[in-house]
């Protein structure tokens, strides 16, 4: 059935809302929030409606059409991947919109916030629905822009501006690689950048007439790896993998709902989603797949270590996001697309829950984010505390919550592909995850309050904020069960998880739970939790300080985030600024003084010389005429003979 309407609505309605807010924000004022929330609700309903529709590609607009060779369209590719992702994006988006209504109640720039939020929804749904790489790239950039706007929402704070710039610039570096990858694919597939077309070229070896991918694979096998790695660069930038991870912790300068939506659930997951969409490319180049997995593993491990030393609750959650993204990227690199996407969905739920919960805490304590000032808040904020507890358990990977199932699946795949030593490292990362999660929870919600003043002024947040928390907590508990075939069927998806996540021809149709493994990962989780509790229970600082003095070098290394930021800053100071001195010298002395000033002075000088020809004396002019005649005659004689 031809129904381009629903994808069209999902795509364009947030844009419409953003435009309305842009144009009418002065007269709308607070009502702009309602417009934005309404549009996100409609999008949610539409995406639910899409869940049942058949797989199809809907061409929507023609963007550029120069000739048959250069043809970019805006279209929607609806298949399992996009349906699931769209649902998650719109669902979490709607909850965040609702939450923002309460969180940003006192903010004067609400229209701008909601306009940017609608803009973000437009861009994100664009990425999800994209049926070709060019369209995805356009919306990729738009998402980066929306993120910049939202991170820098409180632009009066210089730190927020810097963070927004940092996010955009780091993203841009990744996008450069992405663009190169797209161009490589463009040349390999003779201009057809649609996912369907690329997939058929890569799997069947057929495809476009002039440069079938099979030909490329035989003649230039390195080009496929190069394309895969370049496309991965985009994911490195957007999903904040090492070495481009530096923007995500700083992005916490933005409002907490933004952090929840963009930097936990949706935008950073776009990198993973894009890689899943391009899974044929990774399958075609095992080397690239290994690189991707390695990068993901390194990120997971390093981020988990860095999270243990942070004191700001949002920063801890940011590093935890980095770590979990590392897991997802690892999964995709190994070809386990379904596991990666599954972890993406569950992570979206519980991480959004955790962020919104921390937002509730921040809002209640009037923007006190440092854990040094918090403590014992559970009594004062029961709903927030409980939901936060559920989210922490999910993050730590404690069954039967969702995080356990998804993380477990990834570790199983890792074991199958890479062996025991990788499992050891990632297991250690999982221990760390549980550890810092417990640390966070204990220091924020339990024990005695560190700052009595803050404690006295805290109160539970309104329903507008706690409602989404409760909803997400329920999802965090139950969404893991969809892995079981029967649960999935009961919900209306005959194939269980497979139907919800990836295309039918991939992967097994039934999930077998390896109970031994499950027990092992449960054990890991419990170890981490106990370690955290051991260190931090009861406001005890002595054990953690002892650990710090045990290996001061390592402690400093982790505390300073492995000096990545310092390294980049030094590179910019020396490299970029040094180069810019050269360029500015050239601009000043060559272009300006010689070229521009020089030509002006030459003109002036020659004018000053030539003006002496105009004597105004008639005899001179007569002489000139006579000389001209004689000269011409001489010239004629010379030329003739």
């Amino acid at each position, binding site marked *: 059935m031809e129904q381009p309407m629903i994808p069209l609505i999902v795509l364009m309605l947030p844009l419409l809302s953003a435009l309305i807010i842009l144009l009418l924000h002065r007269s709308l004022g607070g009502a702009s929030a309602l417009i934005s929330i309404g549009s996100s609700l409609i999008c949610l309903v539409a995406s639910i409606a899409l869940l049942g529709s058949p797989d199809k590609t809907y061409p929507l607009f023609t963007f550029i059409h120069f000739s048959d060779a250069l043809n970019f369209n805006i279209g929607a590719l609806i298949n399992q991947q996009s349906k699931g992702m769209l649902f998650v994006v719109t669902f979490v988006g709607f909850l965040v919109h609702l939450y923002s209504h309460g969180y940003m109640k006192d903010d004067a720039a609400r229209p701008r916030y909601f306009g940017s939020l609608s803009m973000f929804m437009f861009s994100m749904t664009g990425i999800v629905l994209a049926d070709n790489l060019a369209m995805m790239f356009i919306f990729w950039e738009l998402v980066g822009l929306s993120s910049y706007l939202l991170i820098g929402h409180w632009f009066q704070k210089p730190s927020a501006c810097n963070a927004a710039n940092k996010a955009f610039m780091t993203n841009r570096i990744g996008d450069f690689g992405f663009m190169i990858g797209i161009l490589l694919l463009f040349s390999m597939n003779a201009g057809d950048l649609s996912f369907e077309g690329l997939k058929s070229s890569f799997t069947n070896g057929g495809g476009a007439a002039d440069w079938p991918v099979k030909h490329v694979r035989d003649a230039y096998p390195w080009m496929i790896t190069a394309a895969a790695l370049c496309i991965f660069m985009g994911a490195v930038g957007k999903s904040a993998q090492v070495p481009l991870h530096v923007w995500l912790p700083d992005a916490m300068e933005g409002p907490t709902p933004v952090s929840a939506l963009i930097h936990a659930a949706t935008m950073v997951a776009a990198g993973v989603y894009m890689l899943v969409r391009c899974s044929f490319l990774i399958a075609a180049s095992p080397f690239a797949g290994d690189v991707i997995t390695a990068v993901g593993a390194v990120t997971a491990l390093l981020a988990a270590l860095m999270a243990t030393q942070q004191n700001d609750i949002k920063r801890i959650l940011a590093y935890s996001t980095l770590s979990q993204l590392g897991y997802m990227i690892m999964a995709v690199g190994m070809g386990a697309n379904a596991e990666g996407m599954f972890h993406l969905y569950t992570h979206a739920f519980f991480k959004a829950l955790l962020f919104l919960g921390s937002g509730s805490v921040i809002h209640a304590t009037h923007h006190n984010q440092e854990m040094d000032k918090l403590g014992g808040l559970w009594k004062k904020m029961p709903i927030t505390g409980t939901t936060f507890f559920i989210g922490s358990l999910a993050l730590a990977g404690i069954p039967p919550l969702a995080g356990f199932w998804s993380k477990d699946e990834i570790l199983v795949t890792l074991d199958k592909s890479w062996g025991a030593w990788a499992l050891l490292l990632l297991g250690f990362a999982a221990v760390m995850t549980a550890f810092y999660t417990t640390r966070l929870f204990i220091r924020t919600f339990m024990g005695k309050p560190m700052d009595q003043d803050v404690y006295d002024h805290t109160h539970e947040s309104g329903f507008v904020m706690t409602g989404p928390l409760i909803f997400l907590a329920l999802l965090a508990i139950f969404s893991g069960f969809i892995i079981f075939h029967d649960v999935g069927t009961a919900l209306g998806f005959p194939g269980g998880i497979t139907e919800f996540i990836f295309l039918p021809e991939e992967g097994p149709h039934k999930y077998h739970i390896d109970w031994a493994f499950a027990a092992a990962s449960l054990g890991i989780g419990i170890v981490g939790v106990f370690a955290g509790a051991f260190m931090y229970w009861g406001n005890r600082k002595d054990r953690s300080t002892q650990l710090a003095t045990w290996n001061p070098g390592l402690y400093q290394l982790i505390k300073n985030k492995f000096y990545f930021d310092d390294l980049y800053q030094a590179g910019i100071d020396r490299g970029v600024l040094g180069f810019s001195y050269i360029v500015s010298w050239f601009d000043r002395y060559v272009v300006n003084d010689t070229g521009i000033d020089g030509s002006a002075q030459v003109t002036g000088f020659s004018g000053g010389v030539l003006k002496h020809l105009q004597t105004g004396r008639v005899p001179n002019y007569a*002489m000139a005429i006579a000389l001209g005649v004689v000269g011409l*005659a001489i010239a004629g*004689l010379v030329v003739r003979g």
Partner: protein
Amino acid sequence: MPSLLFYFFALVTLLFGVLVIASKNPVTSALSLAMCFVGLAALFIGLDAYFIGTIQVLVYAGAVMVLFLFIIMLLDIRAEEGRKPNYAAIIGGAALAVVLVLQVAVILRGFDAGKKTGEDAVLKPQEAVAAMGAKALPTITNDLNRGTLPDTKLMGLQLFRHYSFHLQIVGLLLLVGTVGVVVLSKKEKAGRTEGDSPSGGGSEGESPSLRSAPAIRPSR
């Protein structure tokens, strides 16, 4: 024309020409120029161009030079005295003239068609009658048959048969010149403003003599 006469008149022409540019007194220059024209007229007559030769004397020596003398007298131009000659300009001008003559000499050396003499260009009046054919005028053919060259009549034939339109135009030109001279020479009267009609020669078809001509301010 016998060579002697040619050389004599050529010398006269050139000599008086040099005298024009060399004399201090403008009246001397004018009169020398008149003599130069007379020499030229003699050369014309030697070339069997009787009409043109006569016209040269009548118009040039008779009217134009007299006009020059009138103006010299009117403006009361004295001889330029007490001014030391500008040697640079003199040498420059002389060099210019010499170079030009040399160039022409070089060109003429290679000009073969110019090497014909009077014998090669013999006039045959009787034969010309036959060539003229049906368009012949009796007065001309009679003179030609008698062996003389009716130069004036042939000139008239040429002008009025082939160049009649040009003749009319030249007539108009003379009219315009006359008008222009009248307008240009008018003295400025006090209190008169500049008229709105365009001044001077070149405006065809207008006759400012029909209304009072505007005063023309001399160019400042």
